[in-house]
């Protein structure tokens, strides 16, 4: 007989937070990672060590709204919901379309993708270049952290046991003028785990680089981004000189250290990551999108 587990499903966020404050729980939003993580062999139910607390239905976590030029996305919005939402920027929608398949996208959430902190998390490179900030809430109040500080390692995040990720904030994302690309390299076009992910953002003003950011997924324990390397390009004329491109590519060559696994090789991952970067930087012009 299957063992019984305790599961909570409160109507409101404050009740949920107060339970979390009392007890360490496994939080289930869409469940598309938790259920796989704790899966047993055939014929035996998953073994989840803690009581389960469902948050997927909480309306406080499902809002998408604009605050000046910032975009706030509720952590429990499913991918499918975000694809339908007019406020979600096109590059993010394109990234979401590469995730799994419709059935998973109907359950999986943006907050879940962040808290799962997979090295190959599909939306993460893009959220890094958007400088995403995360609003965490507990009975003690709110705090906001940068996504790059929140994600600390493979499946390791800086969430206290009594906290819930409430919103993903994309600062200034609704300002016009940036050119953003996202590329997911998988072994096939659906239901694939990324072998390499790349996101790049550039804003050009008066034919010079005003802002530039890039992040790589699946080539290290967490997303690879370097503000120091990005800074080297500020103020450079567009199109970038070959030497500028080469310098940036060489700098990333030093810090990208992927691994061999059942999905690909370290050599491939690195070469493709640098190819995508070089291609992004070598563009003759950048159309805002």
């Amino acid at each position: 007989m299957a063992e019984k587990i305790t599961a909570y499903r409160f109507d409101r966020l404050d009740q949920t937070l107060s339970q979390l404050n009392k007890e360490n729980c496994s939080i289930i939003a869409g469940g598309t990672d938790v259920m796989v993580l704790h899966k047993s062999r055939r014929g035996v139910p998953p073994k989840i060590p803690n009581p389960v607390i469902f948050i997927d239905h909480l309306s406080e976590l499902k809002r998408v709204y604009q605050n000046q030029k910032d975009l706030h996305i509720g952590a429990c919005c499913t991918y499918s919901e975000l694809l339908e939402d007019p406020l979600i920027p096109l590059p993010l929608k394109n990234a979401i379309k590469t995730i799994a398949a419709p059935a998973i996208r109907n359950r999986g959430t943006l907050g879940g993708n962040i808290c799962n902190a997979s090295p190959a998390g599909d939306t993460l490179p893009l959220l890094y270049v958007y400088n995403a900030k995360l609003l965490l809430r507990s009975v003690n109040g709110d705090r906001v952290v940068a996504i790059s500080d929140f994600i600390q390692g493979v499946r390791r995040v800086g969430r206290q046991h009594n906290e819930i990720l409430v919103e993903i904030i994309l600062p200034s994302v609704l300002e016009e003028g940036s050119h953003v690309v996202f590329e997911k390299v998988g072994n096939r076009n659906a239901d694939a785990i990324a072998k390499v992910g790349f996101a790049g953002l550039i804003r050009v003003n008066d034919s010079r680089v005003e802002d530039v950011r890039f992040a790589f997924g699946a080539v290290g324990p967490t997303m690879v981004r370097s503000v120091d390397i990005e800074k080297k390009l500020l103020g450079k004329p567009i199109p970038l000189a070959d030497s500028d491109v080469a310098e940036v590519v060489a700098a990333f060559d030093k810090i990208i250290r992927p691994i061999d696994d059942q999905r690909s090789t370290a050599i491939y991952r690195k070469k493709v990551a640098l190819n995508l970067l070089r291609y992004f930087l070598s563009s003759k012009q950048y159309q805002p999108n």
Partner: protein
Amino acid sequence: MNLKDISTSVPKKDHSGKVSGQLAYISDVKVENMVYGVLVRSPIAYGKIKSIQLPNFPEGYEAVGAEQIPGPNVVKIIQEDQPIFANEWVNYIGEPILMLVGKELDILYRLLNEVKIEFDELQAIYTLDDAIQQKSAPGVTMASYEFGENLDVISTIEQGAHKIIEEEYSTGYQEHVYLEPQGMLGIYKDDEIVVQGSMQCLYYIKNALISALACGDDEVRVVQSPTGGGFGGKEEFPSMMACHVAVAANAVKKSVMLVFDRSEDMVVTTKRHPAKIKYRTAIDEEGNILSMCVDVFLDGGANAGLSSVVLQRALLNSAGVYKIPHFHAKGYVLKTNTVPNGAFRGFGAPQSFAGIESHIGHISKLSKLDPLDYKRKYLVKQGDPTITKGQFRDPILMEDMIEDLLNASDFKSKKGEFQRFNQQNLRYKKGIGTSLFLHGCGFTGSGERDHIKATVKLVKSRDDKVLLKISNSDMGQGIYTTLSKIVAQALDLPFDRVLYPDPDTKEVPDSGPTVASRTTMIVGKLLERAAKKLKAQWQPGVEQEVVENYVHREMIPWDEKTFTGDAYPAYSWGVNIVEVEVDTLTGNVKLEKVYANYEVGKVIDDRIMKGQIDGGLAQGLAYGYLEKMTSKEGRIQQKSISDYGPPTSMDVVSIESKVFDNPYADGPYGAKGAGELTLIGGAPAVQAAIEDALQTSFQQIPITPEVIIESL
């Protein structure tokens, strides 16, 4: 049934059960007094078992092993090298040693971890390359054949040749990824053991069980349950699972269910043989082929299984669809300490066709000749000898099929269009490639006459319904429908008055296994003859029975020792054209268009044939560029569908196909085999297209993004 054309589609017999999700597969079945079985498997690739220490079992839980086997500890296939439960030597990671049985799976899984086995571990052979180096060591070569032109003659030709072209080509694993993982149930009864499960070959299993249980013919019974895909993966492998559950049921006197989950299935079941093929071809100054030597090496894995027969088909197809002067071939199956490789749709031919299409393409490019023109120059014609001194005796429509497909695909203008595109686009490169191929239908040589000896039976009930009594499995390929259609048409009976119950060896004679693209052509023909006989003696309201036995087509007799004669009674043919776009930054390949022409004698059901074309081609294309399975120190690395990466609907484009009529006298309504043919041309066409896009040559499949990026 009175169809003007037999090819007109009808609803499939098993359509509503499958579409509604009501049909019970073996893992849905529960019977009284049933326990589960789980297998204790070898964690090492090669060694000797020193000791086994079992945990304390709770009541109702026990271990079953070699000592409980009433007969010899051998899964009866061809050679006696595959134990039911390894009790002395283990030869690969995952080899079954014991089965634990009991009521609850979670308790069984816990007990599995508590079994302690000590081994003397020995140096294993992990790769085909290692095995090739050690092929003369005892036990490494499991089978070999050699035939064709005298090597002295070839040596003289080579001395006078303009150039000798040598190439080494390798092909990887392929996993079947049938939708339903393997499953088998052994039902314990006082007077018999009934084995029920997902399978292609009822009588293979029955024969294996009679041997394992050392029992009489009427003490075991094999029943096929609805089978969710086979592709050859359920040809010989289920015999071992059937032995496991039958031996266990017999030992514990309970019914025993053994079902794999996907990861267990991917790691321990048979795969397509990885191959290495060496070509040595002499050409003259104009690029004409003077002679060709082909050496084929198949990685057999740890047990012989059906590998010798797979090698035969690989060799028989080693010259492709070409008439090559002074051709010589030899081949080996080599043992490695890896999961045994076995039957897989195409059965050795996909490796050979990928190799020969690649090699001929490369020769033509070296001589600056158009690959397709060059191939057509060597294309076999009706009346030509085969490489085994047999004969292509039926009409061959390949030239018409090629011309038609060139027009359908607008091949000539595409070539120019792609060249212009590739000059302008820095990132993406487009290419177009072709493949020409055939498939020998039915068993190799005299197998049907000497080994299979198929028998079919039709039973007419008092209410004038007709039942097909044959041992062939519908595994999704549609024979419930096609064979019923053949019988209904011959009897001029409504389709719904012809029934095809799930085969049960207690009820059906041995009409042979469901393999080798033989079912429609061989079994279908027997059924057509039986139906005509029944029609002639039809008595309304009376129970009647008709039996038909296999009759061999007169040919040049096959001699396995000299590898000469007619290897197959008939051949089906195909042409594929594939367009791709390659991303030079990532190495990813996108299929853009796929065109296919086939000739299978006569189509029995258009929609079912389209299913075979689309599914077979998707599987064959993926074999060439997408699906990738690797073994590291004897361990399969890809344990999930997403890591292995078979194509989704987002990867395959709609396939434009046409089937040519060319009725074959010894097939029902003219039909030949179609199931395997459709896979074979996929990989070579996709390779040719990628090579065209990148203007380079590859010597391997799959051509993964990793391979492409390394080549750039």
